[in-house]
Structure formats: structure tokens, C-alpha cells
């Protein structure tokens, strides 16, 4: 199968869905003429024209809120925020409007909106490098997707665009350049809410999110060399969340480690821990380990960032502690 980058996969998904459905539009800062500051949307304005692909002013509240309004009135907008951190700039529109409009109005309207959010620490400091998935996982009415491979980036984005609900689509900046096999053409869809077992094993369940997945797989290989066969699970979507995949795995392994780039306190690992304590206590034979961003903003300096961002080594050591 041909291999393409995560970035190309996103560009393909956008192009295919815009070809398929005229109600899909794309806008954001610098997405049209420039093709996006990460160049993900290059060529789309040329193919789909100024009305369906356009640049906007620097007005994040209007961007997101207009996405909701357009979704209420028959479009399927894809809004690009230049950095996932700007979800906070537009949090009223994200949490209170996109997440609650349908429910608050008794289901009279759907909100088929996708917000694309480049996430992840990459040397750009506290306000341009967060992985804020967990904040919005706590908010009712929002679906949350965080793909780790080019194939999932494509298949999940296509599904997100077709979904009748608001979806926050997190793209880790450090994954953009990574390559992987992606089925050509056709209609490659990956359903929201289905986890992927990236590696089978019975020694320990290692849940990894977004850019932590490749790191977890490397750690898993080292652990295998040590004789520990760990299972690596990539939830892929956090809302809906594939609880069964994780619970079933833990029933088999009895041990759980969660690797994520969100802040530790109330990060995704907290929900997984609580869920297991509710539903799988009797199977757990070791304490939870959360490999996460410590509860500090992301420092700008490379050596400081490296110190706080979870990596292969930290994942390896945490697993090792439980496997002794």
C-alpha cells in the first residue's frame, strides 16, 4: 500500500469530503491563499473556490461561533484553529454553543461542525503547545478525536466531517511529517469510538494517546526485549470512548499505564483510572501509573520542554516499575 504523511492524509480527507458533499466548507486563518501555516490545506482553495475555502480575520470567537451558526443552517463547516490552545480563546463558542445548542433547544437542531486543532509541544511555549483534549472531554456534547497515524487521521477526519455532532479534531504537530500506509481513494472511513490495539500483549495494558502512541510502541519493544509482552491501546477517539477495549485488556493484564501529553491532574489517565476503579477493581494487581505532562505550563526552552514532556524513556520506566 502507498505511504503518505499524516499531513497529506488530512489534506486528502478534506478534499475527498469537499468533493463528495457541497455543504462542506473550510475556513480559518491563512488556510486559503497560504494553504495553512502548517501547509495542510494547500490546493483546496484552488479546487473548491473562494466561497468554500477562505481566510478569516483573527477572530477566534467568530470563527467557531460562525461554525455553529453555519452548522445550524445546513452547512458542514470545518474550522481550522491555528493552534489547539486557541480553543480557550473561543471556549464559550466551543463548550457552551457547539456542545449545548442541540440539547438546550430540545434537539431541534444538529451541529455538524468539525474544529481542527493542531496540538502538542513543539518549542513554541505555553500557549501554542498544549494537548487540551481532557478539558473538553469533561464538556458534554462534544466529540473528541485524537489520531496517531496517517490512516486514522484520514479515516477519522472523514467520519468526523460526516458526523452530525460537533467534533474537536486534534492533530499533533509532531505527527504531521510522520508517514504511514493509507488506503488509496475509495472511501476510507474509521468509525469514532473504536480503539485500536496497536500491539497485543498480556503483561500490562499501556494506553497511549496521539503522539504518545509511537513512543509507547518503542517502549513496548524494549519491554518485549526484557521479556514483558505489553498491550498497547490507542483509543483514537476520547468521546465516544471505547471503555470496553481497555477494560477487557486490563482483565487480561491486571496492570494499567496511561501515556498522554495532557496535564496529569484530570488528564485522560484520571478518567481511565476512575473507570477501572469502578469496573475492574478485582482484576487490578498493580497501582495505576500516569505518564503525563506535569501540572505546569509548557516551557519554551527546548531542554526544559524535553524535561517535562512524556517520552519513550518515561513510559518504559513506569511500565518497568509495575513489571518488576
Amino acid at each position: 500500500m502507498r505511504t503518505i504523511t499524516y499531513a497529506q492524509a488530512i489534506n486528502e480527507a478534506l478534499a475527498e469530503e469537499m468533493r463528495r458533499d457541497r455543504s462542506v466548507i473550510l475556513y480559518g486563518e491563512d488556510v486559503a491563499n497560504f494553504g495553512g501555516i502548517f501547509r495542510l490545506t494547500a490546493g483546496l482553495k484552488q479546487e473548491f473556490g473562494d466561497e468554500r475555502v477562505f481566510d478569516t480575520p483573527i477572530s477566534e470567537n467568530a470563527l467557531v461561533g460562525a461554525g455553529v451558526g453555519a452548522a445550524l443552517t445546513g452547512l458542514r463547516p470545518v474550522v481550522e484553529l491555528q493552534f489547539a490552545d486557541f480553543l480557550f480563546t473561543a471556549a464559550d463558542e466551543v463548550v457552551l454553543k457547539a456542545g449545548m445548542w442541540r440539547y438546550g433547544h430540545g434537539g431541534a437542531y444538529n451541529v455538524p461542525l468539525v474544529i481542527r486543532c493542531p496540538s502538542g509541544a513543539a518549542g513554541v511555549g505555553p500557549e501554542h503547545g498544549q494537548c487540551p483534549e481532557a478539558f473538553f472531554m469533561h464538556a458534554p456534547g462534544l466529540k473528541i478525536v485524537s489520531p496517531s497515524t496517517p490512516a486514522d487521521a484520514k479515516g477519522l477526519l472523514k467520519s468526523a466531517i460526516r458526523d452530525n455532532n460537533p467534533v474537536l479534531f486534534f492533530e499533533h504537530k509532531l505527527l504531521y511529517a510522520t508517514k504511514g500506509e493509507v488506503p488509496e481513494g475509495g472511501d476510507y472511513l474509521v468509525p469514532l469510538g473504536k480503539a485500536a490495539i496497536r500491539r497485543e500483549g498480556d503483561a500490562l495494558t499501556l494506553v497511549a494517546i496521539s503522539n504518545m502512541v509511537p513512543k509507547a510502541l518503542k517502549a513496548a519493544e524494549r519491554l518485549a526485549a526484557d521479556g514483558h509482552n505489553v498491550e498497547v491501546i490507542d483509543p483514537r477517539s476520547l468521546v465516544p470512548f471505547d471503555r470496553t477495549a481497555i477494560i477487557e485488556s486490563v482483565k487480561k493484564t491486571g496492570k494499567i499505564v496511561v501515556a498522554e501529553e495532557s496535564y496529569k491532574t484530570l488528564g485522560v489517565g484520571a478518567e481511565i483510572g476512575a473507570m477501572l476503579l469502578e469496573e475492574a477493581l478485582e482484576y487490578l494487581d498493580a497501582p495505576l501509573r500516569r505518564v503525563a505532562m506535569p501540572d505546569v505550563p509548557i516551557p519554551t526552552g527546548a531542554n526544559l520542554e524535553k524535561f517535562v514532556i512524556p517520552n519513550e524513556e518515561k513510559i518504559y520506566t513506569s511500565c518497568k516499575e509495575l513489571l518488576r
Partner: protein
Amino acid sequence: MDQKLQLEIYRKILLSRRVEERVAELVKAGQVGGFMHPGVGQEALQVAAIATLRPDDYMLYAHRGVAYWIARGVPLEKVLCDLACKEGGTNHGKGGVMRVVYPKLGVLGESGTLGGCFPIATGAGLSIKVKGEDKVVLCFFGDGTSNRGTFHESVNFCAVRKLPVIFLCENNGWAVSMPTERSTAVKDIAARAAGYNIPGVIVDGNDPEAVYDAVTTAVKRARAGEGPSLVEGKTYRLWGHWIGDPESYRSREEVEMRWRKDPLPRYEEKLTEAKVLTPSLKSQIEEESKAAIDKAVEFMRAQPLPKPESALEGVFAEA
């Protein structure tokens, strides 16, 4: 303005007024739990502006009273059921009367945070433009709300993309206890149009025909693809911010003085002088209104509350 339309507007102003009087009774008597911000004194502005719309246009109302829905043609009994958070309304108790929604007539609903309306209206305008339709969006907001950042972002966005949105400010002089002159650096909200290179028009909000003309011009401009307009109607909130507001923040004199400019009797006189309204027609309209309200209240009373378990439904649509 032709007589049919004049009477239509008068009818709706009067009905709105009588509905709010009845709602106040019901709320004070504890017969409905609903919470409402009365619009008494602003009905002329609300009714006349909405009278300029086509059935397929969109609107975002503000939180101020019932006239928006009556003017738009949302069945009265549905509004009352929403007020009481019962079945038979438009949102099944999920949003109450502050979230009346009616897709058939483009009533998109309401944002609970002030200023949330602006980006939503912008998005509706975007849909219209992308689809190449000639619909418009009418977005109501208060003087206080004009100080939200979303106003600035949205008006600029609509102006650069030439979206068919009419931003209609109901300047009623107050935002809860805050008088406009202390909350807002500029005397006329309409002056803010200069920051976006769009028309900014001031109109006497208690004169329904003046409002009708001003909004009609803005609607024409929007339909022609020439972009948004800002219209400011000067009016006054004759009742409290909510039913039961002590109103300790303003003087009796100020309010009494404003009652003398109450748009209802004022329009009544005008139509009577113009021989459009006769005493008999007037009392007929009063009776029809009362009958309609009695009927709607009865309907509301007879409706069940939503099933408690339904509180768990409706967060997500079928994928």
C-alpha cells in the same frame, strides 16, 4: 404603510403586551415556575423589525420578552409551554422560554451568554452566502450586549465577507442596573458602524413604522449582497430586568416619564387618528387577544411535564 400591515403590527404589539401581563400574573401567583425578562415597552421595535422578514429568513432574538415569537408566528401555546418547561412547547423543557426554537420559521434559538448571538448570526449569514440564497439574518441584541467582544469580531467578519446580517440593537437605556451611558463609551451604538465601514442607523424604537422602514432598508441591502447593517432602535425597558426586580437602581420619575412614551397607546392614537383603528375594532382586537391567551394558557395547563428520564436524551444526534 398599508393598513393591513399597520393593523397586523398593532395586533401583535397588543397581544405581546397582554401576554406579558398575563405571564407576570402567572409567575407572581407561582403558577408557572418559568423565569422571564419582560419586554414591555419594546414590543413596537421587536414586532415591526420582524415584520420586514420573509418566512424563510433567519432570526436570533434577544432575551427580552415574548414579542419576537408572536411577531414571527410561533404558536403562542408553544411559547407558554416553554415558559412552564412542559411538553407541547418547542424545546421539551430543556431550555425553557429563553430557548424558544422554531426551525420552520428560521428561529434558531438563543445563546445563554450575551453576545453569543453574534457569531451564530454570522454563521447563518455564511450559509446563505455559500448557498447563494437571498435570505437574511436578523440579530437582536441589547445596548449592554454591544460591549461584548463577539460583537466586534462578528460585525467585522460579516462586513469583510459581505454577509446578509442585520444587527439590530434594542437600546433600552439599561443593562440590569447599568445605564447605557456608564457601560458604553459612545452615545449611539449605531456610531460603531464606522469601525466596520457599514451603515449605522438610529431610529425611534417606539415608532413601529420608522423601525419598519429602517430595517427594510437594511434587509434590502443584505438581500442585494451588499452586506451587513447596524440599526439602533432607541427604546426603554418599562418593567424590571426580571419579574420581581426591585428596580432600586433607577428613579420612579424616570420610569413614569418613559411610560408617557409607551409605544402601545402611541400607535393606538396614530392609527385611530388615521381612521385605521376604530373603538370597536380596538375592543375586538382586545377580545381576540384575551381569547387567544386564555386558550393558550389552558393548553399549557393541560400539557404534561417532560418525562424526567428525558433529561438524559438529546445531547448527541445520531452520528
